[in-house]
């Protein structure tokens, strides 16, 4: 195992990786931008290194600074997390050239699977069908022509894309010009590459994905599927495992398809094969994510495994103990993503300072968070604050547990999508498992988020609310809440809640 690793990320995923490294006795180096000096991931690492100003392009995306940080703090391996440089083959190359172990797939596999056109060709060689369409496009006119051939609606995508960036649904030919311009602009800004392709939009369809891990000795292992159909603007909101649409027979076929594609790509380490499943149970390869995914905890909870630990063991040359498809999932897990956004105002990202924060504490609940009390939420980074994940033996039990956990969660200081998540989980559509990729947009059209009723008891609570400790002029020691906003005197959040430097700035 490694002596010391550097985590080239921030937020909840950096915290997640650092925890496993500590558990394994691996020393850790965190990197941070100037505004992240007291962020949770920094407080958790043995060493920390400031790599530049707040803007990600000047800090978390600077390959040279990350390599320098790894070298100067004695790290021998780099974990990229997700987002930022995690799917950047040049970064993987730079780490390897600097003598560092890259905890992830090889640069060649990142390049091959990161290019949607090449990824489709690899899937075809592995005998797996992709979503119809997929040819590159040179112009809006070509897009219009191809869209007519495929039949509307179609989905315009950035070839280098992911996470819904640079993606547009086109229902009518009149929308082609606007969609072409907007999607290319977004793709250019997000990936520095505006190569576009178009696919047929399968409807109704479910988004089902298979997590795989592959070691350096030729073993590939697939886990139970995750269903991530609940999305808004192609951003996943709620994920679960297993899927209500997948039985044991389909699971095994999809796992075999995933393993075949991974083998064809010469893939090593953790990765996810995304598929669309139509109502007949036919599945189509969509794309591969060559990294750890946001929703990996649901797989961990139904398989009793630590995927980050597997990633480290594989990168260190260790063999997987299993090969091929795995046995049925144990119980049911559902994850909800808590975002700093305001559902009542079109889900615009919000910013501010977390004044009071409480996480649910009950059996079967896991919280992966990248914030603590006092954290400033800026618009520099991804607005996801935390993931709340529930596990129980049956789906309905898990669903109720997650609703209850969301009701126990308190985030004051920044608007979040918390109530929206609760309402979505409480909706009959979700309760009966009829989740499709269009479900959330449809639900929002029928039931737009509305203002919650403010009754007299809420007004009394407002009148009795104490002043925030860091609310500017009023923030003296005397009127700060005695318990730092947390009723648990032993909560670790208390100690970091009002984190300040010991010395005043020069």
């Amino acid at each position: 195992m490694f002596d010391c690793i550097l985590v080239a990320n921030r937020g909840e995923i950096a915290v997640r990786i650092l925890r496993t490294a500590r558990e394994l006795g691996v020393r850790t180096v965190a990197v941070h931008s100037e505004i992240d000096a007291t962020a949770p991931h920094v407080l958790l690492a043995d060493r920390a290194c400031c790599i530049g100003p707040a803007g990600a392009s000047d800090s978390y995306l600077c390959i040279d600074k990350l390599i320098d940080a790894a070298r100067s703090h004695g790290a021998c391996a780099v974990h990229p997390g997700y987002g930022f440089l995690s799917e950047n083959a040049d970064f993987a190359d730079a780490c390897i050239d600097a003598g560092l172990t890259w905890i992830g797939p090889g640069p060649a596999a990142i390049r091959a699977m990161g290019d949607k056109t090449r990824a489709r060709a690899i899937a075809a060689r592995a005998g797996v069908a992709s979503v119809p369409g997929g040819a590159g496009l040179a112009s809006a006119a070509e897009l219009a022509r191809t869209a007519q051939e495929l039949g509307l609606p179609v989905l315009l995508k950035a070839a280098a894309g992911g996470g819904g960036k640079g993606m547009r649904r086109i229902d009518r030919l009149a929308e082609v010009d606007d969609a072409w311009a907007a999607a290319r602009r977004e793709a250019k800004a997000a990936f520095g590459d505006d190569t576009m392709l178009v696919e047929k939009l399968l409807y109704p369809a479910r988004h089902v994905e298979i997590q795989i891990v592959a070691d350096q000795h030729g073993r590939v292992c697939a886990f139970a599927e995750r269903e991530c159909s609940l999305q808004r603007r192609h951003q996943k909101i709620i994920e679960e495992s297993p899927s209500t649409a997948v039985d044991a027979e389909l699971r095994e076929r999809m796992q075999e398809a995933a393993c075949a594609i991974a083998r064809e790509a010469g893939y090593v380490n953790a990765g996810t094969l995304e598929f669309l499943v139509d109502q007949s149970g036919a599945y189509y390869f969509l794309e591969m994510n060559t990294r750890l995914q946001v929703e990996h905890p649901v797989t961990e909870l139904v398989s009793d495994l630590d995927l980050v630990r597997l990633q480290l063991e594989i990168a260190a040359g260790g063999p997987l103990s299993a090969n091929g498809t795995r046995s049925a999932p144990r119980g049911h897990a559902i994850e909800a993503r808590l975002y700093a956004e305001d559902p009542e105002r079109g889900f615009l990202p919000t910013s501010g300072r977390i004044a009071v924060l409480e996480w649910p504490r009950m059996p079967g609940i896991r919280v992966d968070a990248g914030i603590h009390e006092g954290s400033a939420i800026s618009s520099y980074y991804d607005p996801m604050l935390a993931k709340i994940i529930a596990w129980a033996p049956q789906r309905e039990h898990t669903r109720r547990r997650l609703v209850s956990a969301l009701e126990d969660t308190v985030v004051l200081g920044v608007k979040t999508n918390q109530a929206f998540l609760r309402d979505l989980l409480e909706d009959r559509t979700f309760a009966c498992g009829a989740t499709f990729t269009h479900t959330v947009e449809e639900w929002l059209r029928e039931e737009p988020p509305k203002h919650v009723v403010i009754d007299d008891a809420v007004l009394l609570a407002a009148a009795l609310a104490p002043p925030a400790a860091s609310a500017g002029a009023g923030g003296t020691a005397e009127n700060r809440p005695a318990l730092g906003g947390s009723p648990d005197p032993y909560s670790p959040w208390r100690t970091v809640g009002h984190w300040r430097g010991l010395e005043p700035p020069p």
Partner: protein
Amino acid sequence: MKTLRLASGDRLFELAVERHQDACDLVIREEGEGPRVFHASAHTLGSRIFIRDSAGNGCLYAGIRDRGGVWVAWRGNTVYLELAKGGSRGIGDHTRASEVAAPINGRVVEVRVTAGQRVARGQVLGLLEAMKTEVRLEAPRAAVITEVAIAPGDLVDLGQIAFRLDPNSSEELDEE
């Protein structure tokens, strides 16, 4: 007794609390209605507030006051009640809005209108890019644009004025 003026959407409240040991009387004056009194027992610990009404129903709240208002959370709901300044209407009243502000820090991608132009309610005036996603700036009402305060490529902050609207142009144009 200190009073607190709070606004939520188009509701405006004036609140005054009278505490007797564990019980509270909250005197509520709401715009457009006569005063009423809410009687309940209340316990506070830091930011946690437990309230039991006279019918016996209890609920645990979390609340904190910052410079601009009060946050209250309960059972998965969170609201922010803004501190109202004397006489001013609550936020969210767009019918007389005379400016369009950036809803987030971001970069201006496109400006679609010029000063003097008549716009319809909901018309897209410009596009911002924030967190790699496009955010539209829309006209809150039918109006004449009096000033365009942003240009493509500008970095704008949350709350920065992007467009000004003629304050008197609404009625003649808004047909709804």
